């Protein structure tokens, strides 16, 4: 192994990969949320459908989206390897454990696995259909555009799907409550001046972003009633 592979397969190296990809995914969450909030624009889906068309056809976005999938994969692979190694590091457990750490910080693997399940379902529901499936077509300003807005609003008429989306956002919020600040610690950023700020942003981020996502299906469901 050369120095680089040695570095990224050491425990700290793997952690740095997980932290870096995790923070990139945080950025993705923000961009994705800002785009999706157009679902609430109340214009019959015009702005959202145009945005969806741009996102699926722009070459730059296509490149970034490949990078995004690679980062998701790296995040999963490295954290899975770490989790397996961490389990192996204590073959015999304790009879009694009293924890002095947060529940979320101890259960990132569980939370992450649930988020992965959600992601698979979420992609199958919308992304796959948009990319490869049969879609209804709508005319906007003389252009023929796939009507993703219709597909989304149909899906969010089902209270079960709405409930599942809101529930999943709680998991993402918990995952972020530890992950966001933890990533900076892994990069070695710990400072009397900046750590309180990072922690504050972390708390705001893990509440505001999942809340923003959760509002969309709820509002769309209520509007369709």
């Amino acid at each position, binding site marked *: 192994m*050369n120095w680089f592979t040695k570095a990224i397969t050491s425990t700290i*190296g793997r*952690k740095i990969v997980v932290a870096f990809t995790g923070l990139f995914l945080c950025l993705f969450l923000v961009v994705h949320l800002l785009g999706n909030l157009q679902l609430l624009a109340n214009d019959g889906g015009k702005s959202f459908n145009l945005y969806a068309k741009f996102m699926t056809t722009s070459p730059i976005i296509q490149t970034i989206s490949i990078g995004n999938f690679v980062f998701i994969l790296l995040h999963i692979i490295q954290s899975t390897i770490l989790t397996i190694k961490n389990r*192996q*590091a*204590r073959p015999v457990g*304790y009879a009694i454990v009293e924890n002095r750490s947060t529940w979320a910080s*101890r259960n990132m693997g569980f939370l992450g696995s649930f988020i992965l399940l959600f992601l698979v379902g979420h992609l199958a529901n919308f992304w796959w259909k948009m990319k490869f499936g049969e879609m209804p077509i709508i005319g906007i300003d003389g252009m023929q555009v796939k009507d993703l807005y219709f597909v989304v609003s149909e899906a969010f008429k089902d209270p079960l799907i709405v409930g599942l989306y809101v529930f999943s956002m709680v998991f993402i919020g918990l995952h972020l409550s530890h992950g966001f600040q933890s990533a900076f610690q892994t990069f*070695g950023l710990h400072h009397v001046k900046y750590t309180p700020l990072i922690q504050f942003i972390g708390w705001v981020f893990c509440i505001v972003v999942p809340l923003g996502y959760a509002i969309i299906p709820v509002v769309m469901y209520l509007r369709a009633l």
Partner: protein
Amino acid sequence: MNLTLKVWRQKNANSKGEFKTYHVKDISPDMSFLEMFDVLNEELLLKGEDPIAFDHDCREGICGMCSMYINGHPHGPGQTTTCQLHMRSFKDGDTIVVEPWRAKAFPVVKDLVVDRSAFDRIIQAGGYISVNTGNAPDANEIPIPKEVADAAFNAATCIGCGACVAACKNASAMLFVAAKVAQFAMLPQGQVERKKRVEQMVAQMDAEGFGACTNTGACAAECPKEISLANIAILNREYLAAKATSEYV
């Protein structure tokens, strides 16, 4: 005080251990936890039974030998060493469960004694500095800011007891390694081996089979010397910087 103890008994490294229940009577609340074990062991000896093996040395809270996992915490409730844990921390009639440190890298030798030489090998890998032999240098010959000296000293108070490993859900040794790396990285005397040190100590830490840090903070919450999580951030950036810039391939 009368207490019920459930203690892990294991004949040797290869045998399968089990919990055994003991009852101790008339324990003074001013006794240390280890003194309570001395009383129990004397009773066991009088009965002709094998006394419980446990590590201890200075009994002043500075050597880091005592290593019992008591009621779900390394060194018991409170942030202290087991020798400085007093029976007044418990209530009359309590049941106390005592286990050895649990980690692949700390195999059980007997009963509550674990082999912590993995820590020694990590220190051997890089936890040292090069100095000239000869006369002792004058004190304060090298100017070091008070804040830096204090931070380095705080890291240096790590006694290598292994409570961080015992407390961590991943049996990670990061807080220990971080304390040692940070202590030297902050001081001028530590600069000579700075990059090599962190690379080699982390490589040894991995080779010993310790888990990875997931920043739960359980280690710092249990550390009897209150080593801060900030040291782990220092370790991470030292490692990243060393890997990126050192000449060792």
